[in-house]
């Protein structure tokens, strides 16, 4: 899946995450989180794994996390990528 356009998913509210994607030739992931000390590494792993499942190998991915649970982060990465790629979800592979 290729990111064609800038796209955003999620919100800045507590327990949610705002994910922003833009097209690029290389893959760069940037995460800032209110629970960085406790879950920074785990959030980056979740984002990377979710991008991998979506087949995203290029793009600028920025995540602004406000203490969101893992399933929220997954859903927000999916939302931004699918909007960026203007694609429909394959519910089996999410």
């Amino acid at each position, binding site marked *: 899946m290729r990111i064609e356009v800038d796209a955003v998913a999620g919100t800045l509210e507590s327990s*949610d995450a705002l994910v922003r994607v833009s097209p690029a030739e290389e893959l760069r992931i940037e995460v800032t989180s209110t629970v960085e000390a406790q879950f920074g590494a785990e959030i980056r792993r979740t984002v990377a794994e979710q991008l991998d499942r979506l087949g995203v190998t290029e793009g600028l991915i920025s995540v602004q996390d406000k203490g969101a649970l893992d399933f929220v982060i997954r859903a927000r990465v999916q939302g931004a990528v699918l909007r960026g790629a203007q694609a429909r979800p394959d519910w089996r592979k999410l």
Partner: protein
Amino acid sequence: MKAKKSPAERPSRSMLFVPGSNAAWLSTVQVYGADYVMFDLEDSVSVREKDTARLLVHEALKSPVWAGVPVVVRVNAINTPFFRDDLEAVVSAGVAIVRLPMVTDAQMIRHLDAELGVLEGKYGSVPGTTRILAAVESASGVVNAVAIATASPRMMGIALAAYDYAMDMHTTHDAAADESQLFFARCAILHAARVAKIHCYDVIYADVNDTEGFLREVAVIKKLGFDGKSLVNPRQIEPLHNAFAPTPEEVERAHRVVAAAAEAEKVGMGVVALDGKMIDAPIIAAAHRTIRLAQVSGVQVAGGVR
């Protein structure tokens, strides 16, 4: 596949609405002890968020946060562009119950039934286990209530939604005012539920801060025989459950009825009697319902809760 208890066993007094686009509520609402939580993809989700809310609900259903908790998802109405995607998103995540809004006739239920069958096949769910809750919101829906309620073995409940029904009936729905304009609709879907032996849910009470008005409406629907009510805020759960809780005397009597029935069965007597009065099957069934309700409501009976 998660084992889905049959509706009869689960208490079904409260169905708490949660906007499918609100990550915070989807992460925390399971603590409030509602009998059902309903993730909404329809009216509480703006058009801009339909796609992301669908993903959020899909991932919530698959997450450990909601494992083992009975979740209903209200999808968008059949005639909307969102219906198919909503359905696929939730069935692929193993949803227990799909709530379909704007139901006007049995054909819609059969259409949903068929769609669910296809999706259960595609995603490996046990065929027929995804249940349906139909929301009736129009004159035709109310008039066709029995046909709707009996349209599929998947049906687990039927609910009334006031705002659209009132508009369809050229009247308005003001939660605090007297409810005569809903009386016929309530009776209609109640009868349909009893015919189909499924649950029956009343409208939401929107003004969370008006506890008296809420309790007035709860008293009305309990008297009519409703099983439960849709709620919009956790603060409405406890008042509702207290209102539906049987009194200690009712629980006491229910235990004696069950005991008498068991005694009669043991000695092979056909007719059960208690305090000189005959007790038939519906009374025994009602007694079991009262006992189950007492257990979940934590009603104290002499010698602790049995």
